[in-house]
């Protein structure tokens, strides 16, 4: 289990123990954290699991694969610290990762 911290745009913080191997998106969906829609179910085809990663984590996460940046073009208010949470597979290295959930997904 690895601790992932989700901050909603309404200012709530959810600190969740997510099983390694699941994605940050799945951790949110399975624990009913609002704001991550994941319409396509994790296929990198919809950009509705968009999150902002806390700056200090940006360089510690696995790099974006082809296609993630393309999908982020479609996200609601993308920024430099935007990621698709379906592409962040939880591992020990991510313990304490903090993500901000945008006000909207589309």
């Amino acid at each position, binding site marked *: 289990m690895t601790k992932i911290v989700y901050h909603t745009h309404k200012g709530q913080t959810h600190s969740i123990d997510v099983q390694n191997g699941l994605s940050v998106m799945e951790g949110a969906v399975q624990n009913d954290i609002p704001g991550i829609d994941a*319409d396509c179910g994790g296929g990198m085809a*919809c950009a509705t699991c968009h999150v902002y990663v806390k700056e200090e984590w940006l360089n510690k996460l696995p790099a974006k694969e082809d296609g993630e*940046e393309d999908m982020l*073009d*479609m996200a*609601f208010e*993308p920024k430099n610290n935007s990621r698709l949470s379906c592409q962040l597979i939880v591992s020990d290295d991510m313990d304490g990762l903090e993500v901000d959930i945008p006000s909207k997904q589309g």
Partner: protein
Amino acid sequence: MNKTDVLIIGAGPTGLFCAHQLGIIGLSCEIVDNLDKAGGQCIELYPDKPIYDIPAVPECTGEELTNNLLQQIKPFNIKFHFRERVEELKKDQNRWHVKTSGGIVFDVASIVIAGGVGSFEPRKFPVKECEKFEGSSLFYSIKDKSIFKDKTISIFGGGDSALDWAIELSNTSKVNLIHRRDGFSGVEASVQKVKELNDQGKLNLFTKYQLDSLSGDKLIESVKIKHDEGEIKEIKSDYVLGFFGLIMQLGPILDWGLNINKKTIEVNTENFETNINGIFAIGDICSYPGKLKLILSGFHEGALAARGCFKYAKPDEKLRFEFTTTSKAAQERLGIKK
């Protein structure tokens, strides 16, 4: 008024196969979809990507799967209504009346919702004042390109739609293309063409900029764009076009009184009927204990929902279970000549 036995909402794989199952048991149906063609997510999200888990089909693309399903339902001459979104639902004795965004009214015995994750709608700008100009000087799709002649157009986006329109409109209009990063998701040839046009001064390319605000009275007069590093530029603009792909939204179905849980519709697993008699839900849009969002599950759900529709369409008849291999009636419906 279009009178038919069943209205299917959604022309994705699940809706298409349900139409087949209705045809086999002798029920008529028509299909509504908000997109301009059949296939749903298969066509809109991954036409060229392979699918490996359709039973007895080791590998196929979304497009191939759609084409095969269309081929399979050809004998039933099913009527499609594309670019239509269902809006109003009314009960009229034993029938349902459904009205679409384009004003088509259906008179049906039952409804099968095979709407995936909702209807596809263009993704919009996050900036608030955009709504005010939408439809007059701000658009997310182009119906009549002649209005842009000799005007200044600011196009936002980095995919094929944004690039293609920037190239095309640069022939007759002054075009600004604005994108949030240096990379583009559109095809390389178009990216090169855009860069060439920019070098020749036939188009102005702004990368690492996003829309900040719009100004104008009734129509847009100028747009402000903001660089990653905070610098703001104001550019004159008669029209703004945004191409950010499509998003799926459940829309007016939410107000039909169905039991909705996490954007899905609750159904029973006997025939995939919802809490409202005569309204069924199948595919990604339905939920029940153990639900898997797989195309093959959608096929199973469609087969059972089709049979569930029978008693509403033909209350005085009894449905007999038959195999297509041996059923004369089914083969006649399929137009098989022996």
